[in-house]
Protein backbone atom coordinates (compact mmCIF):
# COMPACT_ATOMS: atom_id res chain seq x y z
CA UNK A 1 0.00 0.00 0.00
CA UNK A 2 1.24 3.50 -0.79
CA UNK A 3 0.01 6.80 0.59
CA UNK A 4 -1.16 9.41 -1.91
CA UNK A 5 1.27 11.91 -0.38
CA UNK A 6 4.17 9.60 -1.21
CA UNK A 7 2.93 9.36 -4.80
CA UNK A 8 2.80 13.16 -5.04
CA UNK A 9 6.36 13.37 -3.71
CA UNK A 10 7.75 10.65 -6.01
CA UNK A 11 6.19 12.25 -9.09
CA UNK A 12 6.97 15.85 -8.11
CA UNK A 13 3.28 16.41 -8.76
CA UNK A 14 0.52 18.72 -7.58
CA UNK A 15 -3.06 17.91 -6.61
CA UNK A 16 -6.34 19.45 -7.73
CA UNK A 17 -9.87 18.21 -7.14
CA UNK A 18 -10.24 16.55 -3.76
CA UNK A 19 -7.36 17.70 -1.54
CA UNK A 20 -8.21 15.77 1.60
CA UNK A 21 -7.04 12.30 0.76
CA UNK A 22 -3.27 12.65 1.02
CA UNK A 23 -3.21 10.02 3.75
CA UNK A 24 -5.38 7.62 1.76
CA UNK A 25 -3.52 4.51 0.58
CA UNK A 26 -3.69 2.73 -2.75
CA UNK A 27 -2.54 -0.79 -3.42
CA UNK A 28 -2.52 -1.15 -7.20
CA UNK A 29 -1.52 0.98 -10.16
CA UNK A 30 -3.23 0.71 -13.53
CA UNK A 31 -1.93 2.69 -16.52
CA UNK A 32 -4.34 3.16 -19.39
CA UNK A 33 -5.80 5.74 -21.74
CA UNK A 34 -8.61 3.31 -22.47
CA UNK A 35 -11.46 3.64 -19.99
CA UNK A 36 -13.09 0.49 -21.40
CA UNK A 37 -10.20 -1.48 -19.86
CA UNK A 38 -10.43 0.38 -16.53
CA UNK A 39 -14.07 -0.68 -16.27
CA UNK A 40 -13.08 -4.36 -16.40
CA UNK A 41 -11.10 -4.15 -13.12
CA UNK A 42 -12.57 -5.78 -10.02
CA UNK A 43 -9.92 -4.80 -7.45
CA UNK A 44 -10.29 -2.04 -4.86
CA UNK A 45 -7.75 0.66 -3.93
CA UNK A 46 -6.57 1.34 -7.47
CA UNK A 47 -4.55 4.35 -8.63
CA UNK A 48 -5.43 5.21 -12.24
CA UNK A 49 -2.53 6.53 -14.31
CA UNK A 50 -3.75 8.09 -17.56
CA UNK A 51 -3.10 10.71 -20.20
CA UNK A 52 -6.80 10.92 -21.01
CA UNK A 53 -7.67 14.39 -19.84
CA UNK A 54 -11.42 14.58 -20.24
CA UNK A 55 -14.59 14.26 -18.20
CA UNK A 56 -14.83 10.55 -19.10
CA UNK A 57 -11.72 9.66 -17.10
CA UNK A 58 -13.22 11.27 -13.97
CA UNK A 59 -16.60 9.60 -14.52
CA UNK A 60 -14.95 6.21 -15.05
CA UNK A 61 -12.97 6.62 -11.83
CA UNK A 62 -16.07 7.67 -9.89
CA UNK A 63 -18.05 4.64 -11.07
CA UNK A 64 -15.11 2.26 -10.48
CA UNK A 65 -14.50 3.49 -6.90
CA UNK A 66 -11.09 4.89 -7.87
CA UNK A 67 -10.10 7.65 -5.45
CA UNK A 68 -7.04 9.07 -7.21
CA UNK A 69 -5.99 9.69 -10.81
CA UNK A 70 -2.48 10.60 -11.96
CA UNK A 71 -2.76 12.74 -15.09
CA UNK A 72 0.54 12.22 -16.94
CA UNK A 73 2.31 14.00 -19.83
CA UNK A 74 1.59 17.44 -18.36
CA UNK A 75 -2.11 17.29 -19.32
CA UNK A 76 -4.21 20.04 -17.80
CA UNK A 77 -7.71 19.27 -16.52
CA UNK A 78 -10.48 21.72 -17.41
CA UNK A 79 -12.83 23.31 -14.85
CA UNK A 80 -15.58 20.74 -15.45
CA UNK A 81 -13.15 17.92 -14.66
CA UNK A 82 -11.91 19.59 -11.47
CA UNK A 83 -15.48 20.26 -10.36
CA UNK A 84 -16.54 16.64 -10.97
CA UNK A 85 -13.43 15.37 -9.17
CA UNK A 86 -14.29 17.54 -6.13
CA UNK A 87 -17.90 16.35 -6.08
CA UNK A 88 -16.78 12.72 -6.31
CA UNK A 89 -13.94 13.06 -3.74
CA UNK A 90 -11.33 12.14 -6.32
CA UNK A 91 -7.78 13.52 -6.17
CA UNK A 92 -6.41 14.61 -9.54
CA UNK A 93 -2.61 14.36 -9.39
CA UNK A 94 -0.95 16.41 -12.13
CA UNK A 95 2.41 15.12 -13.29
CA UNK A 96 4.82 16.20 -16.03
CA UNK A 97 6.34 12.74 -16.56
CA UNK A 98 5.44 10.26 -19.30
CA UNK A 99 3.16 7.35 -18.49
CA UNK A 100 6.18 5.02 -18.75
CA UNK A 101 8.30 6.97 -16.27
CA UNK A 102 5.38 7.50 -13.90
CA UNK A 103 4.51 3.80 -13.88
CA UNK A 104 8.17 2.82 -13.51
CA UNK A 105 8.75 5.09 -10.52
CA UNK A 106 5.63 3.89 -8.72
CA UNK A 107 6.34 0.22 -9.47
CA UNK A 108 9.95 0.59 -8.29
CA UNK A 109 8.71 2.05 -5.02
CA UNK A 110 6.27 -0.74 -4.27
CA UNK A 111 2.95 -0.02 -5.97
CA UNK A 112 1.59 -3.36 -7.23
CA UNK A 113 0.37 -4.19 -10.73
CA UNK A 114 -3.10 -5.73 -11.02
CA UNK A 115 -1.88 -8.33 -13.50
Amino acid at each position, binding site marked *: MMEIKKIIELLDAKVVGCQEIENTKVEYGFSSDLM*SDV*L*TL*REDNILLITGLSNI*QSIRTAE*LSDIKAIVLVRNKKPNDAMIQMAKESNIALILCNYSMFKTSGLLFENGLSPIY
Partner: protein
Amino acid sequence: MHLEFSVERGDFTKAGEASSQIKRTLKKLNIPSKVIKKVVVALFEAEVNVIAHSYGGNITCIIEPKYIKITVTDTGPGIPDLKLAMTEGYSTATQEIQELGYGAGMGLSNIKKNSDDLDIYTEAGDHTEIIMGFKINNEE
Protein backbone atom coordinates in the same frame (compact mmCIF):
# COMPACT_ATOMS: atom_id res chain seq x y z
CA MET B 1 -38.03 1.86 -5.44
CA HIS B 2 -38.39 2.78 -9.08
CA LEU B 3 -36.02 5.14 -10.95
CA GLU B 4 -36.14 6.25 -14.58
CA PHE B 5 -33.69 8.13 -16.79
CA SER B 6 -33.59 9.05 -20.45
CA VAL B 7 -30.36 8.74 -22.43
CA GLU B 8 -29.71 10.93 -25.46
CA ARG B 9 -27.89 9.80 -28.56
CA GLY B 10 -24.35 11.13 -28.96
CA ASP B 11 -24.23 13.20 -25.77
CA PHE B 12 -21.02 11.92 -24.20
CA THR B 13 -20.76 14.80 -21.75
CA LYS B 14 -23.68 13.20 -19.89
CA ALA B 15 -22.37 9.63 -20.14
CA GLY B 16 -22.54 8.10 -16.69
CA GLU B 17 -24.97 10.59 -15.15
CA ALA B 18 -27.68 7.96 -14.70
CA SER B 19 -25.14 5.43 -13.37
CA SER B 20 -23.82 8.06 -10.96
CA GLN B 21 -27.29 8.91 -9.63
CA ILE B 22 -28.13 5.23 -9.18
CA LYS B 23 -24.81 4.73 -7.38
CA ARG B 24 -25.69 7.50 -4.91
CA THR B 25 -29.14 6.01 -4.32
CA LEU B 26 -27.72 2.51 -3.72
CA LYS B 27 -25.17 3.94 -1.26
CA LYS B 28 -27.93 5.68 0.68
CA LEU B 29 -29.79 2.36 0.85
CA ASN B 30 -26.65 0.73 2.34
CA ILE B 31 -26.35 -1.81 -0.46
CA PRO B 32 -22.96 -3.65 -0.12
CA SER B 33 -20.19 -1.84 -2.03
CA LYS B 34 -19.27 -4.94 -4.10
CA VAL B 35 -22.86 -5.12 -5.38
CA ILE B 36 -22.91 -1.38 -6.10
CA LYS B 37 -19.72 -1.64 -8.15
CA LYS B 38 -21.12 -4.49 -10.26
CA VAL B 39 -24.37 -2.59 -10.87
CA VAL B 40 -22.80 0.74 -11.80
CA VAL B 41 -20.08 -0.73 -14.04
CA ALA B 42 -22.63 -2.83 -15.99
CA LEU B 43 -25.03 0.08 -16.19
CA PHE B 44 -22.33 2.54 -17.25
CA GLU B 45 -21.28 0.19 -20.08
CA ALA B 46 -24.92 -0.03 -21.21
CA GLU B 47 -25.35 3.74 -20.93
CA VAL B 48 -22.28 4.37 -23.10
CA ASN B 49 -23.58 1.84 -25.64
CA VAL B 50 -26.91 3.67 -25.91
CA ILE B 51 -25.13 7.02 -26.40
CA ALA B 52 -22.58 5.65 -28.87
CA HIS B 53 -24.57 3.21 -30.96
CA SER B 54 -28.32 3.87 -30.68
CA TYR B 55 -30.87 6.56 -31.51
CA GLY B 56 -31.36 7.15 -27.78
CA GLY B 57 -33.23 5.31 -25.08
CA ASN B 58 -34.12 5.02 -21.44
CA ILE B 59 -33.11 3.29 -18.23
CA THR B 60 -35.45 1.83 -15.66
CA CYS B 61 -34.10 0.70 -12.30
CA ILE B 62 -36.18 -1.27 -9.81
CA ILE B 63 -34.64 -1.81 -6.37
CA GLU B 64 -36.11 -4.54 -4.18
CA PRO B 65 -34.76 -5.74 -0.82
CA LYS B 66 -32.85 -8.68 -2.35
CA TYR B 67 -32.64 -7.81 -6.04
CA ILE B 68 -31.91 -4.94 -8.43
CA LYS B 69 -33.38 -5.08 -11.91
CA ILE B 70 -32.22 -2.62 -14.56
CA THR B 71 -33.75 -2.40 -18.03
CA VAL B 72 -31.97 -0.39 -20.72
CA THR B 73 -34.04 0.08 -23.87
CA ASP B 74 -33.20 2.04 -26.99
CA THR B 75 -35.17 2.94 -30.10
CA GLY B 76 -32.88 1.23 -32.58
CA PRO B 77 -31.20 0.36 -34.89
CA GLY B 78 -30.64 -3.05 -33.25
CA ILE B 79 -27.55 -5.30 -33.30
CA PRO B 80 -27.22 -7.48 -36.44
CA ASP B 81 -25.06 -10.20 -34.83
CA LEU B 82 -25.37 -10.32 -31.04
CA LYS B 83 -22.98 -13.25 -30.61
CA LEU B 84 -20.26 -11.31 -32.45
CA ALA B 85 -21.04 -8.15 -30.48
CA MET B 86 -20.61 -10.10 -27.22
CA THR B 87 -17.05 -11.09 -28.24
CA GLU B 88 -14.35 -9.27 -26.27
CA GLY B 89 -12.50 -6.84 -28.52
CA TYR B 90 -15.15 -6.71 -31.26
CA SER B 91 -16.21 -3.10 -31.75
CA THR B 92 -18.06 -0.95 -34.26
CA ALA B 93 -17.18 2.25 -32.36
CA THR B 94 -16.04 5.28 -34.35
CA GLN B 95 -12.64 6.88 -33.90
CA GLU B 96 -14.34 9.78 -32.08
CA ILE B 97 -15.70 7.39 -29.45
CA GLN B 98 -12.32 5.69 -29.08
CA GLU B 99 -10.63 9.06 -28.55
CA LEU B 100 -12.93 9.54 -25.56
CA GLY B 101 -11.51 6.34 -24.08
CA TYR B 102 -14.37 4.00 -24.94
CA GLY B 103 -15.20 1.61 -27.75
CA ALA B 104 -12.67 -1.13 -27.07
CA GLY B 105 -15.27 -3.83 -27.58
CA MET B 106 -15.48 -4.80 -23.92
CA GLY B 107 -18.92 -3.40 -23.10
CA LEU B 108 -21.38 -6.25 -23.62
CA SER B 109 -19.01 -8.90 -22.29
CA ASN B 110 -18.33 -6.72 -19.24
CA ILE B 111 -22.08 -6.34 -18.67
CA LYS B 112 -22.34 -10.14 -18.74
CA LYS B 113 -19.46 -10.53 -16.25
CA ASN B 114 -20.95 -8.08 -13.76
CA SER B 115 -24.63 -9.07 -13.83
CA ASP B 116 -26.11 -12.14 -12.13
CA ASP B 117 -28.89 -12.41 -14.71
CA LEU B 118 -28.84 -11.01 -18.22
CA ASP B 119 -31.42 -11.05 -20.97
CA ILE B 120 -30.88 -9.24 -24.28
CA TYR B 121 -33.44 -8.73 -27.00
CA THR B 122 -32.17 -7.23 -30.26
CA GLU B 123 -32.72 -7.48 -33.98
CA ALA B 124 -31.27 -5.51 -36.89
CA GLY B 125 -33.75 -2.80 -37.84
CA ASP B 126 -35.51 -3.05 -34.48
CA HIS B 127 -34.59 -1.84 -30.98
CA THR B 128 -32.35 -3.37 -28.30
CA GLU B 129 -33.45 -4.15 -24.76
CA ILE B 130 -31.02 -5.27 -22.08
CA ILE B 131 -32.39 -6.56 -18.79
CA MET B 132 -29.77 -6.93 -16.05
CA GLY B 133 -30.40 -8.49 -12.65
CA PHE B 134 -28.23 -8.25 -9.55
CA LYS B 135 -28.66 -10.24 -6.34
CA ILE B 136 -28.14 -8.29 -3.15
CA ASN B 137 -26.03 -10.52 -0.95
CA ASN B 138 -25.39 -8.75 2.34
CA GLU B 139 -22.66 -11.22 3.31
CA GLU B 140 -20.38 -10.08 0.46
